[in-house]
């Protein structure tokens, strides 16, 4: 069998499955008259957010994910701007991952619309990996009406590069016997982690393509780029041993946080605090849902001139209480004193997570208060579990707008 078939030895067969313009494709499914017209998902043309995605008709005008909506309107004035259909993407994403799992023993989600799948050992069911990928693509289309592009390769690095070869609705299999030749003509920017700055640095030493990179020795690359040079040396040869990790094998989250961009920049401290309260409420609930406690609280704010400041403080013992988190966040905001300046974004996150609570020092002036607060949080959680997150909220929290965002 050729190098595009099943691996005969210890080698792996990895798929990278990438849905084509997922959010826009879901909206096109709901509204078939949009097909072939430019569609931008994320909000209205006069809103200050960014595009979540754009379909291929809109991409021809230079609109992509994360293009500011106002810029998108300028680039593509005839586009249809759509705000997301409530909850639809999460529902379709769950269906997609259920389909992927029928074809692969191990599926690693990398976002709502993208996954790696390790299909090593599936040769008893499909003659070639390409047959498996074709069956998966067909099933996805039959059950959801959506298309995806699939890359097949001996590892994640190459599979990801392969899936972008023929988008949309593409399928590309990297021949494991011709990896070096396949990589050589491609620009270095195609490699994972090689961004504009590394590209510039490489261009200064005459490296434009992966082939140019292959020609450099390990010593030359590490002398210039240190550890990163070693990584690039491996990637240029298509080497990657990163395992495909199923959702339950992935390392625990390092932090839990939420942030909010105001509709209009605001210098109103009452609005800042109300927003912080709502953000802390959501962080506390997520910590309790995950059974985690956090020790370090980080406040982030961005002013109207796009300058971002973060400030953190650590607690004596880990907590899952929004009240404690809010207390620290308010103190941090007070320390930073953005008073008078207009704030564009506020965020709160909790890190140094552990599964064990700290023995919180009791409040000497309110004995039992922490316990009662914990009980209140649990009751609020139960009400939300039963009736939804909008059923109950803290008085003062700027919650309605946050929930919509």
């Amino acid at each position, binding site marked *: 069998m050729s190098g595009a078939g099943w691996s005969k030895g210890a080698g792996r067969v990895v798929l990278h499955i990438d849905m084509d313009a997922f959010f826009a494709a*879901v909206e096109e*499914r*709901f*509204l*078939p*008259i949009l097909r072939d017209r430019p569609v931008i998902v994320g909000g*209205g043309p006069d809103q200050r957010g960014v595009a979540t995605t754009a379909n291929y008709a809109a991409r021809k005008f230079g609109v992509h994910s994360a293009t500011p909506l106002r810029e998108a309107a300028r680039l593509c004035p005839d586009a*249809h*701007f*759509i*705000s997301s*259909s*409530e*909850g*639809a993407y*999460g*529902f*379709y994403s769950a269906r997609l991952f259920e389909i992927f799992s029928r074809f692969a023993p191990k599926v690693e989600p990398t976002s709502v619309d993208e996954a790696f799948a390790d299909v090593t050992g599936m040769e008893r069911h499909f003659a070639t990996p390409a047959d498996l990928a074709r069956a998966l693509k067909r099933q996805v289309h039959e059950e959801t009406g959506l298309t995806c592009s699939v890359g097949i390769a001996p590892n994640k690095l190459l599979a990801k590069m392969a899936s972008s070869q023929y988008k949309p609705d593409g399928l590309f299999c990297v021949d494991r016997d011709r990896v070096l030749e396949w990589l050589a003509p491609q620009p270095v920017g195609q490699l994972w982690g090689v961004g504009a700055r590394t590209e510039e640095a490489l261009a200064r030493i005459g490296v434009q393509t992966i082939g140019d990179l292959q020609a450099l020795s390990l010593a030359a690359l590490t002398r210039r780029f240190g550890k990163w040079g070693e990584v690039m040396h491996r990637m240029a040869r298509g080497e990657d041993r990163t395992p495909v990790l199923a959702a339950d094998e992935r390392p625990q989250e390092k932090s839990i946080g939420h942030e909010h961009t105001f509709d209009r920049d605001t210098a109103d401290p009452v609005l800042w605090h109300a927003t912080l309260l709502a953000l802390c409420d959501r962080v506390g609930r997520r910590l309790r849902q995950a059974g985690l406690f956090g020790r370090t609280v980080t406040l982030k704010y961005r002013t109207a001139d796009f300058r971002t400041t973060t400030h953190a403080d650590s607690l004596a013992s880990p907590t899952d209480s929004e009240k404690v988190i809010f207390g620290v966040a308010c103190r941090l905001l007070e320390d930073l004193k953005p008073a008078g300046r207009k704030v564009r974004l506020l965020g709160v996150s909790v890190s140094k997570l552990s599964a064990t609570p700290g023995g919180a020092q009791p409040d000497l002036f309110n004995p039992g208060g922490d316990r009662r607060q914990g009980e209140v949080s649990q009751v609020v959680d139960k*009400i*939300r*579990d*039963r*009736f*939804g*997150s909008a*059923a109950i909220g803290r008085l003062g929290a700027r919650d309605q707008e946050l929930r919509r965002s």
Partner: protein
Amino acid sequence: MYQEINDPVDVLALFEEGKLKPQRFRWKGNVHRVAQVTGAWLTDKGAFKVRHFALMDEEANFFQLAYDDRTTAWKVTRIWVE
């Protein structure tokens, strides 16, 4: 563009093969016959579900409807306006 609506609506629907299938609805005094359901999805509202439908009526108008399991009430949530 979509217009966000949150109007209660009367819906005639079938429960067929374990699925809820809207057939007709009366909104603002007009009766719309469902020609095609273009999408259906669920969202959680606590322990209950909200069933969403994207559909086209026989006059090729596009709507999104939602049925709340807890309140057993239907709403028009969005309409498409060219």
